[in-house]
């Protein structure tokens, strides 16, 4: 690992990852051993590796899998669920499964076809749905914190994008810990300082079975493009991604953000689900899914 000027054998690497994770959890005050953690798992390497590490460190960690109904030819969602279930059974862990098709009446791709923005790709509807469901189920289940498997490459790519476009609001909020607010669970990213390659190596060395295939809709994703750009930088300057992100975290406190802070106090409860929303009436999630159900009744098979 040139970025850390460190070389480890397999045995020590499998100790190093959990030890570092514990260090990040404690240093950034993500959660303590007495708090219940809900880990969002997708069947991919990062989320299953995170769940594995938290379980080995003795934290109270249950898993949440959201079935998006993205099956296409490869059976992507079905396959990823199988990996999550197998992992949970192997370690005697609790896995909550939320099936969007069953609960909302449409899969994510079907729902996207019935919205204006989602016709080309369902990513917008997918992200909105996952965030809403994760938050709601974590609160309903009386968890203290929601953990996701975001790694350094994910965070650096988002930071890069936010900086390129000067998304001030997102820059203000981005970080490894999103504190709880009324209606919002605390969200943490314990793997945020690990390179994607490091989490993948942990999963392989620990013999964690995960889905290798990418979401079929991820092809051409801007996030992947930004990761490739940052990897070119990293190849010439080992440690560049980590420095970029950590320097941002240090600098964040001294940057005077004004736009977002003014909106913080103006959250209302959605008329339908009670979740926080910035405008009166229904939240974006309920508005979107109401629209989907309405349009599905009018036109079950849109062009």
């Amino acid at each position, binding site marked *: 690992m040139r970025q850390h000027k460190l070389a480890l054998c397999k045995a020590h690497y499998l100790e190093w990852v959990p030890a570092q994770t514990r260090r990040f959890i404690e240093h950034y005050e993500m959660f303590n051993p007495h708090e219940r953690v809900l880990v969002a798992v997708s069947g991919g390497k990062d989320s299953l590796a995170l769940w594995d590490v938290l379980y080995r460190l003795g934290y109270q960690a249950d898993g949440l899998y959201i079935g998006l109904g993205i099956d296409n030819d490869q059976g992507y969602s079905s396959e990823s669920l199988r990996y999550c279930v197998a992992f949970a059974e192997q370690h005697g862990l609790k896995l909550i499964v939320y099936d969007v098709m069953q609960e909302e009446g449409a899969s994510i791709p079907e729902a996207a076809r019935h919205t204006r923005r989602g016709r080309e790709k369902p990513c917008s509807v997918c992200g909105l749905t996952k965030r809403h469901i994760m938050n709601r189920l974590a609160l309903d289940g009386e968890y203290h914190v929601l953990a996701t498997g975001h790694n350094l490459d994910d965070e650096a790519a988002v930071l890069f994008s936010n900086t390129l476009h000067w998304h001030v609001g997102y820059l203000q909020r981005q970080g490894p810990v999103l504190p709880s607010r009324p209606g919002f669970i605390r969200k943490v990213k314990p793997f945020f300082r690990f390179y994607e*390659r490091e989490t993948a190596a942990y999963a*392989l060395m620990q013999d964690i079975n995960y889905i290798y295939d990418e979401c079929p809709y991820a092809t051409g994703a801007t996030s992947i493009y930004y990761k*490739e750009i940052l990897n070119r930088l*990293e190849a010439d300057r080992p440690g560049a991604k980590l420095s970029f992100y950590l320097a941002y975290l240090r600098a964040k406190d001294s940057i005077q953000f004004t736009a977002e802070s003014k909106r913080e106090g103006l959250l209302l409860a959605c008329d339908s689900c009670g979740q926080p929303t910035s405008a009166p009436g229904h939240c974006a999630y309920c508005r979107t899914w109401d629209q989907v159900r309405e349009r599905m009744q009018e036109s079950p098979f849109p062009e």
Partner: protein
Amino acid sequence: MWTYFLFGVSLMTVKLTLREKTFEVRAGMTLRDALKRNEIQPEAVLSTRAGELITDDEILREGDDIRLIAVISGG
């Protein structure tokens, strides 16, 4: 240097396989150099030989069959 051939195919090669694509390089170079020659970012893959992870500075041996695992996810 003697080069051995079998059925017209050089045996002095190393195979790198990433998903369905196979790349061939000459033995003796580092894995990192082999990846760069084939425009594969070292940061984007993990490499295994006979099921064991190997590092980028590993010198590739003739007859090696290296499996590359893509690690970059997105979307």
